[in-house]
């Protein structure tokens, strides 16, 4: 799973969000490192919807602008869970190697 996909799923794990809400949440989650452009976001949402990982939730209009909310599906929660476990295992392995490399800093 690519980082933007992981971040979008993580953003939706906090509850349904609309497009701009996802963009802002991804920026926050990545500590300003990743700023999704709308084209990239909607390509990812289309893909995740086709894979059954996200689903549209509801719509509202604010200041004349249509906002459509998206939520994680049970499969999406499972995929995020599996990817999180994979990343945690990798991070744990890397940390243990780094501790061995620099015992004084552990």
């Amino acid at each position: 799973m690519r980082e933007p996909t992981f971040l979008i799923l993580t953003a939706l794990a906090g509850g349904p969000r609309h497009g701009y809400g996802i963009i802002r949440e991804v920026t926050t989650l990545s500590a300003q490192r990743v700023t999704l452009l709308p084209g990239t976001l909607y390509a990812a949402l289309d893909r995740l919807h086709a894979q059954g990982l996200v689903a549209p939730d509801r719509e509202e209009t604010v200041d004349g602008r249509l906002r459509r909310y998206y939520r994680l599906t049970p499969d999406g929660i499972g995929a995020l869970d599996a990817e999180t476990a994979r990343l945690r295992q990798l991070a744990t392995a890397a940390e243990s190697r780094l501790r061995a490399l620099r015992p004084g800093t552990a």
Partner: protein
Amino acid sequence: MPTTGDRLARRYRRLLFCHPRAYRRARADEIVGVLLDAAPAGRTRPTPREAANLIRHGLRCRLGRPASRTVGVWATLTAVICGLFTAALATRAAWETSAPQPDRAETAAVFAAVLPGHELGDVDLAPALFTFYSQPLTVRALDNLLLGDGGEYQQSAVVAGAAGTPRMPADETLALAQRRLRETGWQVYAPTVHSVPGCADKTCTPVVTVTDTTLLARRGDTVLQLHVAAPPSPDGDDPSLTLSRTTPPAVLPAGVAGGLLGAALGWLVFGWASRRTEAAHPARAAVGVLLAITLALWWTPVLLAAPHLLRHHRAEPHPTWHPLWEWLGQPAASLLFVVGAASALLTLALAAAPRRSPLPTAAVG
């Protein structure tokens, strides 16, 4: 009076032109809303990064199948080969802007200037710009062109041979011709030499090794090839020279324009067929197989001919490049092209068949 936001919204909406119409109908309001939310106050135009991002993802969106990792590769292969074929067609049309082939007077003048001391013999004029077995291509010859002889469709040239026996040795003829070519404004290329078995007299006993030297030169839109054999051919016409035309200036822009147009059409048509067959389509599997067959039939000659022609270009001097269609293996492999075109048409016909149920075009069905 439109506000800054209205203008920006209109510009963002225009940038969604690469997305399919049904997708725009379902999602444009939402996407433009997000773009406006993300835009800082006072912005009146989309940034180049935003524009490139929307166009790129719009083109991808045209292919449908958002979860597919390979549809982009298939679309690219289709668009590139369509672009190459339309570029080749456009260059062939642009070749018609070429100056007429050299006539007898021009050929005689060049012969006299380059080969002083030799008497002009037979002159074979070129009957057309490109010929098939030395004759203009006709509809009646199309079956031969399709069935294996397509490689005989070549650029024609005027051939002029010297009358009688050569009046000086081959190396002297070559040295004199090189000097005369330079004096009369020709750009002269390094000669190429081939040794082949040949005849020294009409009985051809014994067989001897003939050293055949070809000298190439270019002046303006004319290419000259001088052939000198040592020992000279017993059939006469030695030395001989051929004159042909260089690629006209209109060929390059025509090829680029034709290529871009063909690639764009290829992408759009592929996208249409891909979206139509992405789910609940009775011919989904058949369309995939036929597409693979089409691409194999169209790409195979290109992958075989292009490296071969590139080696040929690097091995010998070329005052002008071979026409684009020869790089695509055409019309030598025109039968494969025609069968591939039939397969492509069948693919589109099957894709046009009615779907089993309406297809959702957006994440929000």
